């Protein structure tokens, strides 16, 4: 047990109503301590994205509790959950999902401008340097390779010093070498920033960089030995 990381207890997420319900998450228990790098593998539609959505406060579960450093992430107000996300959660999306109009350094500056976080935000240039992108600070996403985009995406997720890093299929668009580099970077940042990281992936190749691996099947989460 930890009161500084992510704690999910008996989390169930049901979509739809009547006979047509889909059980996306079925009694999920998961604890991720700061500095821990957890991977979740499993087939498409097993509920991996739902797990990230609930952990990051994007979706409120049907039942169960989710806390991050003791903070309830299942509050009903969407505005309050947005505030929790910008203060405590970093997202890394598939293929980076950067804003086309922004240069690499501006991608990182943007989240710090969402309000109330100015003083806590890390320096964008230093962060870019940390992920090995200092040379390309003024490039826009279309001028970067897939791996470079992902590096910028990781730096962006870390700028507000989150407690929780949620990573969605970071290697979906990358070749083997780039995949390893990106996941290695995630592992290193997880340790250096003492952040609890949950990565959802199809890519069994990169699991050796992770602390713990879970498999998700039909909404149930099981440890992989």
């Amino acid at each position, binding site marked *: 047990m930890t009161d500084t990381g992510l704690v999910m207890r008996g989390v169930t997420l049901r979509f739809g109503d009547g006979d047509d319900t889909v059980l996306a998450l079925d009694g999920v228990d998961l604890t991720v301590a700061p500095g821990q790098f957890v991977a979740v593998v499993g087939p498409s539609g097993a509920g991996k994205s739902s797990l990230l959505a609930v952990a990051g406060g994007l979706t409120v579960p049907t039942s169960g509790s989710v806390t991050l450093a003791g903070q309830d992430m299942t509050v009903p107000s969407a505005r309050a959950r947005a505030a929790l996300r910008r203060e405590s959660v970093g997202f890394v999306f598939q293929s980076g999902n950067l804003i*086309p109009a922004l240069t690499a350094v*501006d991608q990182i500056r943007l989240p710090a401008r969402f309000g109330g976080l100015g003083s806590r935000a890390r320096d964008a240039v230093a962060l870019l340097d940390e992920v090995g992108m200092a040379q390309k600070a003024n490039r826009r996403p279309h001028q970067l390779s897939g791996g470079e985009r992902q590096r910028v995406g990781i730096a962006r997720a870390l700028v507000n010093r989150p407690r929780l890093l949620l990573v969605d299929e970071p290697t979906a668009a990358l070749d083997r070498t780039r995949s390893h580099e990106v996941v290695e970077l995630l592992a290193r940042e997880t340790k250096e920033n003492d952040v609890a990281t949950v990565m959802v992936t199809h890519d069994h190749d990169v699991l050796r960089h992770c602390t713990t691996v879970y498999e998700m099947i039909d909404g149930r989460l099981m440890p992989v030995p």
Partner: protein
Amino acid sequence: MFLAVRELRFAKARFGLMGAVVALIAVLVVLLSGLSSGLVNDGVSGLQRIPATSFAFADGVQHDAAFSRSVVDISAVDSWKAQPRVADAAPFGNALINARSGSGVEIDLALFGVPTDSFLAPPVDEGSRLGAANGIVVSRTAIDAGLRVGDTVTVDRIGTRLTVVGAMADQHTFGHVDVAYLPLPVWQEIKAGVRPGESVPDGTYDEITAVAVRSVDGAEVDLAAGDRAAGTESLTRTESFGASPGYTAETSTLRLIEWFLYAISALVVGAFFTVWTIQRRAEIAVLRAMGAPTGYLLRDGLAQALALLLLAVGAGVAVGTAAGSLVGGGIPFALSAPAIAVAALLLLVLGLAGAAVAIVRIAAVDPLTALGANR
């Protein structure tokens, strides 16, 4: 503005095209507004510059042709003078005539017959004031068109000869025709069709078009009471503009076109930002997943629309004003700063409203779609 400005710079071509459309509409609106003001000047500047607050026409006169149809007995003038808060009242005669200058050039004139000693007698910039029998004082525009002080003009058909004794400083036109002020009795003879040397029929000097009434400064005359006493039907000076030939039709046509342009501009801006917002759905979902407050995204979007509109309307007004100043003398055209300011403001406000309708869609983008296979 952080994102808004960078997007404007990044999607220069798209925003540029959009801005160009708004700018062209702004040019058109400025030119139309110039044409509008020009036509208003041409139609009623003669009336605008009369120091009267209202005109009392014959009871029951058709409002859109009051100046040409109304006949009032001159006794109504005294009745109006006796009304409270009336500073002065004077007989006023109006007629549109064809004439020929000494050199044979055909000219049209709007004759304003007024007593030479009344408050209606116009100030002159050149020559002398009304007074001489058959002497007329003409609009500056008639001088610009080639008429000279000292010239003689002959009224068609009846042959009355009028001499230009003076010219006013400004444009005085009525129904697109230059105004010539002349002594009331001469106007009454021309109106009655009396040829020079003929005997004047009884009653000729009793008929006028209307009573021009001037209220005490700052006070309002009870027009209904005055009308009851004098047996007339009053129109304020502004209302009487509608009685100038073609005035209502011209101004309402132009106004209709202007309002269509405002509506088109708002719709075009709205359509553009609708497409733009839909194109950005995925990145808006990402921003919202990262916890961007909805208010931040809405403010950013509106600021972007406002910046684009300011640039486009500004450029359009500048080009329109420059083009307007090149419009030649033959076309009724006058740029008026307040009219242009109102037009620019309307383009901004309506364009922003159109954009706002599109931009509020940001609030409906589900941050969940940033994750996984939903994209």
